[in-house]
């Protein structure tokens, strides 16, 4: 019995894993650079290789960064926290368990606002990454090659509430999260390098209640594919539901060639990970003061910066979005724009030139250097101030109506007067300078 008139609502939650770009791994001092490693298995030690007696010691920076991410996402911070062992067997998991967080994650109960509404963030926790498997056939036999360079790299996991209502909202959330992580300078989130991994939990509800099943779609390595995967799942699940069937609770992968999802294994119930607190790692305890301090250290986030720059510097949003990379860059740009104002240069123009690469930009520049570069680019012919003053006088005298209009409040007539001055002088002018002088003259 089908009911083609039924409308189903998407109930979607996302799980995002992001590698943190610490110098060393999460629980040992091995180098954290798996993607660029010239050879396999060159960044291991007794701890991350699962040797007898290898012991974990947590990376302080990774913990701080996780909490800062939580604060940036409006989360509450657990003042008491710990690491737990999560047990399962797989060749890329050297200890036979992953050190993760079970019931007391560092961050919980946060949110991110999107253009399509607020997405609740259930939790953010810290864990270690697994090694990598490469599938090959050697001497006719199918094997997997294992590389542990990535094993033990710090991984932050962000889990949302099932608040996502559309595929576009999911993509927006994903992009925003990536931007924030990059902005805080704690991760690169290069999806092609595995720096950010997406998983979507998708189900459909008839009446808004939480459905009794959940399909997990894994292996999504771009936001575009995520949108496609969600759209596909909505279609697939709708068909099943309209037919009176309940979609199977399972894990599915995304085949980007076929543009469809496929079943991987049935998830009847959650795996038995036998979590227990890791006896090798003493618990973590933070004070309210410490958390406050970390909160204060947070830079203003991209959205807020864009607004600030619009208000303070009149910089167009499209330029800001391209420039805001990480908080270091932002701080520098802010100084540059402030210095621009002091030099009577429009910050928006500087922004444009940087984006067009007419001005070379890097984080080590001093603001004055950028101003100078801009001025050289827009070198105006030397203008004798007397000549300018005289020209202005002439123009004002020749256009008494315009002056009257200006004095009566019709300030837009400035544009016309400026044009007249420019025409008269017939040279490349710093219009800001001219405008300033003109306004002064009008006040007299």
């Amino acid at each position, binding site marked *: 019995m089908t009911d083609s008139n039924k409308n189903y609502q998407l109930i979607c939650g996302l799980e995002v894993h992001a590698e943190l770009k610490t110098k060393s791994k999460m629980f040992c001092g091995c180098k954290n650079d798996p993607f660029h490693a010239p050879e396999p298995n060159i960044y291991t*030690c*007794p*701890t991350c290789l699962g040797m*007898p007696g290898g*012991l*974990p*010691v947590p990376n302080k920076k990774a913990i701080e960064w996780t909490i800062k991410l939580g604060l940036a996402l409006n989360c509450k911070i657990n003042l008491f926290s710990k690491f737990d062992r999560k047990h399962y*067997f797989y060749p890329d998991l*050297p200890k036979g368990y992953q050190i993760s967080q079970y019931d007391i994650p560092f961050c919980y109960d946060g949110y991110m606002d999107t253009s399509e509404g607020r997405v609740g963030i259930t939790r953010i926790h810290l864990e270690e990454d697994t090694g990598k498997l490469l599938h090959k056939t050697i001497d006719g036999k199918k094997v997997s090659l294992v590389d542990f360079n990535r094993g033990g790299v710090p991984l932050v996991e962000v889990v949302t509430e099932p608040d996502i209502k559309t595929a576009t909202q999911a993509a927006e959330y994903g992009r925003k999260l990536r931007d924030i992580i990059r902005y805080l300078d704690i991760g690169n989130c290069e999806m092609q390098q595995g720096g950010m991994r997406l998983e979507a939990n998708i189900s459909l509800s008839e009446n808004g209640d939480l459905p009794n099943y959940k399909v997990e779609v894994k292996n999504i390595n771009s936001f575009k594919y995520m949108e496609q995967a969600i759209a596909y799942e909505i279609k697939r699940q709708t068909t099943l539901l309209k037919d009176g069937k309940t979609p199977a609770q399972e894990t599915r992968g995304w085949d980007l060639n076929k543009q469809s999802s496929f079943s991987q294994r049935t998830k009847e119930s959650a795996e038995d990970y036998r979590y227990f607190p890791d006896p*090798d790692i003493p618990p973590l305890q933070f004070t309210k003061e410490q958390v406050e301090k970390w909160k204060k250290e947070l830079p203003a986030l991209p959205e807020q910066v864009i607004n600030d720059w619009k208000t303070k510097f009149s910089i167009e949003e499209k330029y800001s979005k391209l420039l805001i990379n990480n908080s270091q860059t932002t701080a520098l740009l802010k100084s540059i724009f402030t210095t621009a104002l002091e030099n009577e240069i429009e910050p928006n123009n500087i922004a444009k030139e940087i984006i067009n690469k007419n001005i070379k930009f890097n984080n080590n520049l001093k603001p004055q250097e950028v101003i100078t570069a801009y001025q050289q680019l827009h070198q105006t012919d030397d203008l004798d101030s007397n000549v300018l003053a005289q020209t202005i006088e002439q123009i004002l005298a020749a256009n008494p109506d315009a002056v009257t209009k200006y004095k009566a409040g019709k300030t837009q007539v400035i544009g016309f007067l400026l044009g007249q001055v420019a025409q008269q002088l017939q040279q490349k002018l710093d219009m800001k300078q001219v405008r300033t002088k003109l306004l002064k003259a009008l006040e007299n």
Partner: protein
Amino acid sequence: MLNKLTLKQAIDKLGNKEVKLEDIWLDVLNSIKDKNSKFNIYLNINEKYQDQLNKPLKGLPIAVKDNFCTKDLITTASSLLLKDFKPQFESTVTQKLKDAGGEIVGKTNMDAWAHGSSTETSQFGRTLNPRNSEHLPGGSSGGSAAAVAADMCIAALGTETAGSVRQPAAWCGVVGLKPTYGRTSRYGIAAMASSTDSPSPITKTVEDAAILLNHIAGHDPLNATSSTKEVPDFTENLGKSIKDLKIGVIYHDLKGLEDAWALFAPQLDIFTKLGASVEYAQAMDPKHAVGVYTVVQRSEVSSNLARFDDVRYQHGRDTFGDEAKRRIMLGTHTLSKGYADQYYNMSQQVRTMMIKDYEKLFETYDVLVSLTSPGFAKKIGATEGEAMFGELEDMLLEVSSLGGFPGASVPCYHDKKTNLYLGMNIMAPMWREDLVIQVADAFEKNTHWNSWRNND
């Protein structure tokens, strides 16, 4: 017979040039050649050493339990899975030993993966008790304790999870000193129960244990549970009077201990003679400790052995022996969904209760004393078929292990007929090895049970 020297004697005599290091090594290696095939104490012998007379331990031959990873020296944990395993790194404790001038003369047999209290679960055959070869040496550090008893080394290292140093020390009639948990680093030692494992000295005298502990203790940045507390000079407490110390005697009324207790009780008189006060005290029934320890240890064991497979090691999980399989499976069960609350979580609660019980006793007493083991070393074959032999045998030691308290076993009775020993377990609050050493040393010096000190 220079192999019969204690560590202190050997250090002193080398210092005075009374003896040569090579002669000590010669005698030790000869005793190994003579007796090892019978007693099966060493799995691996190392005859290379360096003269290190400028260092505290002077290059003396020390036996090391085979669960310590020793660089380029095969380390098996007495298991078939690791029978060809050559560690590419050194455990912190053996590195400290080497830094202090100690040389490893060999790796000793143990219960495989430290699962046991008799050294019978070794996958390379059992070790025999040098005091009486029809009997077992105890375990899991049975090989190390036997090596000391047989003078097949000058001193030894073992590890205690719950009884694995003190019990074989008792059965072999030697000294075993388990320090406070966290005093010595666990880095590089095949983990059994992470929350109780304690690398420890096993030696001929209390003084030797204090000397060795001085060199292996200390904070390790690679071990997050190792203590940053300053390491005191443990030898400062030797020869100190125990006058006015308060000694609490526990487990005096347990069923099954009567025979051993009858021999043990008179040994307490020396304490009174030396001016200490001795009182019988009541501790929580240790039978609960068995359940707690079984669950906690097996849970942690099942987790710690999950890393062994034939991807990074030469042999696979099919090589695990019966005892290992039993323990891994029980531990997996007690952590699994639906059972963890009932077993693991509850055990950790009872653990708290037992620790608080000892802490309360320590408010009144400086040290707690009892029998180390319910009886003499058992005969070969006596433990067969007992699924829980280990945990029951260690009942008297489990609470101090679960709580991390330091304790030492010293010989306190010798049966002339069987040549077997009983051990006395002396325990103190956390970080108070000084009290343990003080009392143990006083007992040893003022009685004649130690076969190197006041010969029988």
